[in-house]
């Protein structure tokens, strides 16, 4: 049973976000959105990529561009890609 993890806040401000790491399985998929995008600059993203392959780490492209963030260490997706992910997972956890 794979789970989709939506990260909606900055790990430096909201300690709850670190719980996503604890609850990540190798088949899971992670998506950064809203203020969760800021985590691309953090070790948090490196720790995630130790647990799940790069191909399972995403960020919403307009959310990243709006914040002028570097877009090198994960895959950028559109809102409709997010919708596909939502329908293709048994469960979703929103970390916020």
């Amino acid at each position, binding site marked *: 049973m794979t789970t989709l993890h939506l990260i909606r806040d900055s790990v430096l401000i909201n300690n709850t976000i670190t719980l996503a790491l604890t609850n990540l399985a190798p088949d899971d998929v992670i998506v950064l959105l809203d203020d969760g995008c*800021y985590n691309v600059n953090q070790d948090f993203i490196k720790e995630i990529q130790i647990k799940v392959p790069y191909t399972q780490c995403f960020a919403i492209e*307009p959310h990243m561009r709006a914040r002028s963030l570097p877009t090198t260490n994960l895959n950028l997706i559109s809102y409709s890609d997010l919708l596909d992910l939502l329908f293709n997972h048994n469960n979703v956890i929103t970390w916020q």
Partner: protein
Amino acid sequence: MSVKSKTVAIVNTKAPFAKTIAKEALDVALIYGSYEQETSLFFQGDGVYQLISGQQPEIINVKNFLKTFSAFEFYDLEKVYICQQSLADRNIKADFHIGNVNVITTHEFSRLLHQHDVLLTF
């Protein structure tokens, strides 16, 4: 008899777009500026994200209130302080969309904060 007016520090600790608090802090700063109250702006924690250059909130349908930062000087808001440690923690380069800002150590940040009569945190 003249009374010395109080100095105000507006402390910005939140990122700009997901919540409206950053916009509210800006509005308060501009109001104080309009009334010639001596006001300084402090940016710490995720608040430093309000200053990085190249942001385009229009993409996510947020009004670009960051543009208003460039009007600070017209409101006599000339003291803008940024916490060096907060930038380092976030791996952000000191590349800001406004000039005339001071990047200072946490110690100096605290010292300057304590020089103000009134602190408003957002």
